[in-house]
């Protein structure tokens, strides 16, 4: 039996991207919420809640991007120039916030600067990712083997909405994470943020979901044609369930359920995207199989991935286990 290698790799890269969104989503969210929390010890506590794990989280982005280059070079070569400005903005945002984790502790005089870099970098990175997503969903003009549009094409009302949606959604992940990981004033503030961002996120999910099918006939048929509708209907139904869990968890001041429900919302939105996109990597012009490198390239890298990705997962799970429980401002876990 021969494996459909492009499909296997598409699944692996989709997994890496989802892992990235879920994991870096909450730590970017903590950065987005930073300016809304006053008091140095409160901010220390927020940062300490993600400090042990954020860098591992971000590694999934490198794996997603690097994987795309290695396995689907055509898609990489089309998407990157099309999303030129948002990608560069995202990278610079990630650089700023990444070094802020370290430099913030090196200086007392300049600490506010790195606080600012952390918040601005996180927000810019999230907004740029949302815009990139929106621009990808609305379609990228392709001619031959290259991007055929201009360098502002990514900027549309739709991509601005998805940009805002990702910022708000990450803020929801961040605030529910803080509910889960902190106590006292930070947790109380996080409950307030979570109530606002939960309602805003759900509203934006509805707007984007209703808008998307009108962007392309393919999306429209995928979601509303008979009998496919039977297969895709569970997605919106599960979204409604996750929304209920989120809201009820927040009302009952449950400290774990809101985070899990917010993660579930992101997983479902991601599944919804996959349903819209499949089998395209660049909607709606390049499919998984058209973009794939030869099987020898895919096979070569898959050998390593099959060994190393499980190891990475074990290591990641272990580091979350080590740092389980509530955090305090001095960095201790208890």
């Amino acid at each position, binding site marked *: 039996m021969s494996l459909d290698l492009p499909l296997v790799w598409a699944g692996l890269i989709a997994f890496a991207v989802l892992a990235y969104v879920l994991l870096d989503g909450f730590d970017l969210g903590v950065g987005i919420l930073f300016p809304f929390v006053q008091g140095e010890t409160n901010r220390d506590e927020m940062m300490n809640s993600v400090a*042990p794990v954020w860098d591992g989280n971000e590694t999934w982005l490198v794996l997603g991007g690097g994987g795309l280059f290695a396995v689907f070079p055509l898609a990489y*070569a089309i998407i990157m120039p099309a999303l030129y400005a948002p990608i560069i903005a995202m990278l610079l945002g990630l650089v700023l916030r990444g070094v802020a984790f*370290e430099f913030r502790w090196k200086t007392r005089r300049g600490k506010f600067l790195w606080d600012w870099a952390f918040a601005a970098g996180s927000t810019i990175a999230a907004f740029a990712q949302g815009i990139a997503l929106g621009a990808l969903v609305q379609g990228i003009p392709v001619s031959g083997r290259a991007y055929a549009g201009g360098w502002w094409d990514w900027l549309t009302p739709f991509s601005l909405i998805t940009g805002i949606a990702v910022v708000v959604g990450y803020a929801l992940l961040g605030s529910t994470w803080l509910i889960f990981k902190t106590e006292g004033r930070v947790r109380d503030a996080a409950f307030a943020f979570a109530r606002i961002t939960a309602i805003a996120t759900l509203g934006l999910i509805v707007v984007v979901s209703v808008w998307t099918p009108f962007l392309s006939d393919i999306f429209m048929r995928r979601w509303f044609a008979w009998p496919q509708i039977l297969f895709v209907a569970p997605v919106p139904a599960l979204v409604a369930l996750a929304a209920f869990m989120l809201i009820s968890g927040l009302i009952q001041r449950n400290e774990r359920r809101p985070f899990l429900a917010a993660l579930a919302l992101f997983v479902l939105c991601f599944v919804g995207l996959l349903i819209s996109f499949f089998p395209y990597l660049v909607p709606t012009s390049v499919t998984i199989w058209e973009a794939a490198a*030869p099987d020898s390239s895919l096979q*070569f890298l898959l050998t390593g991935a099959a060994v190393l990705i499980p190891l990475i997962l074990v290591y990641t799970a272990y580091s979350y286990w080590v740092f389980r429980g509530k955090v305090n401002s001095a960095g201790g876990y208890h």
Partner: protein
Amino acid sequence: MELTDPLTLARLQFAFTVSFHIVFPAISIGLASYLAVLEGLWLLTGRAVFMDLFNYWKKIFAIAFGMGVVSGIVMSYQFGTNWSVFSDKAGPVIGPLMGYEVLSAFFLEAGFLGVMLFGLKRVGPRLHFMATLMVALGTFMSAFWILSVNSWMQTPAGYGVNDVGQFVPLDWWAVIFNPSFPFRLVHMLLAAYLTTAFIVGGTGALHLLRDATQPASRIMFSMAMWMAALVAPLQIVAGDLHGLNTLEHQPAKIAAMEGHFDTRAGAPLLLFGLPNMQEERTNYAVEIPKLGSLILTRDWNGTVRGLKEWPPAERPNAALLFWSFRVMVGIGVTMALVGLWSLALRARGRLFATPLLFKALVLLSPSGLIAVVAGWITTEAGRQPYTVYGLLTTVDSASSVQAAAVGASLLAFAVVYFLVFGAGVFYMLRLMRAPPHASEGDLPPDEPVRAGGLLPAPILVPGGGRGRTQRNSGP
């Protein structure tokens, strides 16, 4: 070369980001091995001073490593944004190699880095030493894969071309171990070790100038001087072999490096000159007769090809290469001479009694970094006008992105990089300015504990000093 030309801007952007980037891996490759040696010596001898040195350099390593990682992420996306045609065509061959870099090296480093930085008390010395070795192995693997990619672009092998014009792998062994790879790998690793040795030696010398009796500073200075004495001459041999390999595969690059425009037997070695690409001659040349032929062909009267053998469009820029090459070689020779000088002083028992040597080391401490950047300029600019040598031109590799986009992003990179990496280098220098002391702190107590990963570096002014007092004076 116009500044409104998107290709020029894209090349400038790549040159800028890669030059910034290479500095940090060069330090972290060298320091990772140095840390492993220090911890090994500590385990062997049980002398606390080795652990003090380990803890001292560990903090500096963490900053360099972190900055290497963030600047490296940018590189991996820049292939797509600015060089999309290259990515499409070369992706099937070099993409998987870079994928292996991400998978193996990145995760090896990231996984064990946390243990190395925070874990001595938690996991015990043996396991901790293994983590340190793994971090060193990770930096080596990282260099291995990236240099394999770079070498393939210089001396492509093991590939075919498919019907849509992509390079496709036919023989992975030939791809990875392409003709220039072993030479480049050895040359770069030795460069990283030497760079680190001079940073370590310069730091030790700085403290010995104030007090020549400090044991920790004496040890690092002495170790660095052994490296200069042994590795710098080795590097000259490795560089010479690398040059012969380049002569075989990229003779135009050698002609540009040597400032030779005319093919001739018994070619001189130019010590000074100003190559002029338009006039096709090297002006104001100061030369040693026949030595160029001897070095390149091992024969006083050997024939050395000049740039005129190639059409003007295929010539790398000799005005740049001639000088970048001389800067690199000049620094390498200086390092070897300093190494010999230290041997002579050591033999007479005056290694720690010669302030002039300390001063020279302080002055030379960043020289390795300059040599590394100059060397990379030589090999990369010398590959022009191609990205994949002889097969894919730079002009045909670029994305069709407007100049304004590339220019604006170049400006943004420049601003953010100078700010961020400027601050990082400042924090590193502040750590090096304080001497290592007995029972050098393992970790500052008031910083968060990290599980590890890409940037898990808690750093503070060692030895209490200013940083600690300031911190305690806070609310």
